[in-house]
């Protein structure tokens, strides 16, 4: 999950979910944006007075083992 400013220093923020397990030992991290959204992250940011633009999630990247010598 990435929160980036489009009007720095972070006075207005954009939220982007990146459902990827790249670099991890096993699948599962790709579910983090969904879990945080289900926990109400975006709504909580808005309720707390943050000016938020929700830019959605990037396409899911399916986890797979990295073969020796390959580039991730």
């Amino acid at each position: 999950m990435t929160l980036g400013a489009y009007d720095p220093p972070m006075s207005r923020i954009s939220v982007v979910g990146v459902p990827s397990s790249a670099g991890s030992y096993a699948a599962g991290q790709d579910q983090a944006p969904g879990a945080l959204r289900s926990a109400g992250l975006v709504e909580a940011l808005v309720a707390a007075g943050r000016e938020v633009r929700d830019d959605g999630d990037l396409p899911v990247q399916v986890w797979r083992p990295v073969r020796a010598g390959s580039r991730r």
Partner: protein
Amino acid sequence: MGCRARIACYERPRAQDIAAPEPPRSAARRDGLRPLVRDEDVALVGYRAFGDNDHVLEEHIRDTAVTVIDLPEVREYGAARAVGKALGPVTRPDVEGFWVHLDVDVLDDDLMPAVDYRHPGGLTWEEATEILRGLLRASGARGLEVSIFNPRLDPGGSLAQPLSDLITNVVPASRIR
């Protein structure tokens, strides 16, 4: 966005972390990639080492120009001083801004066990809140990314909420115009 510097809240850097502040040079050379951020523009907060894995591919983080504020230092001097030290390298005049990367395994393993690579100890929610809030309030802060959280390892589904709360609590409020 032109961000050239990054503050990382890592348990420890790993070559396989695509967002690692800088992979060991040996690894970078091996796959032909080059670091995207200069060592001297990086600060590492909450580092904790373990005897058998303290070196990553022949290079140790302490042998680089990365500013390291380890967990014992955070505990000894407090979060505010850790923030000040971390901001030093990333708020120099020649650095346009910085990005905060939070690997959630910097948190105490008892509090955030839903990570692939577990080790005991780590920051409390309160410490993480104070550090991240301090970093993100700095004028050069451009954003925050949160990684490593693995909901599959949270079968009760209880950890996304405190993590969401942490994020909400550390992102600065919108400024009045």
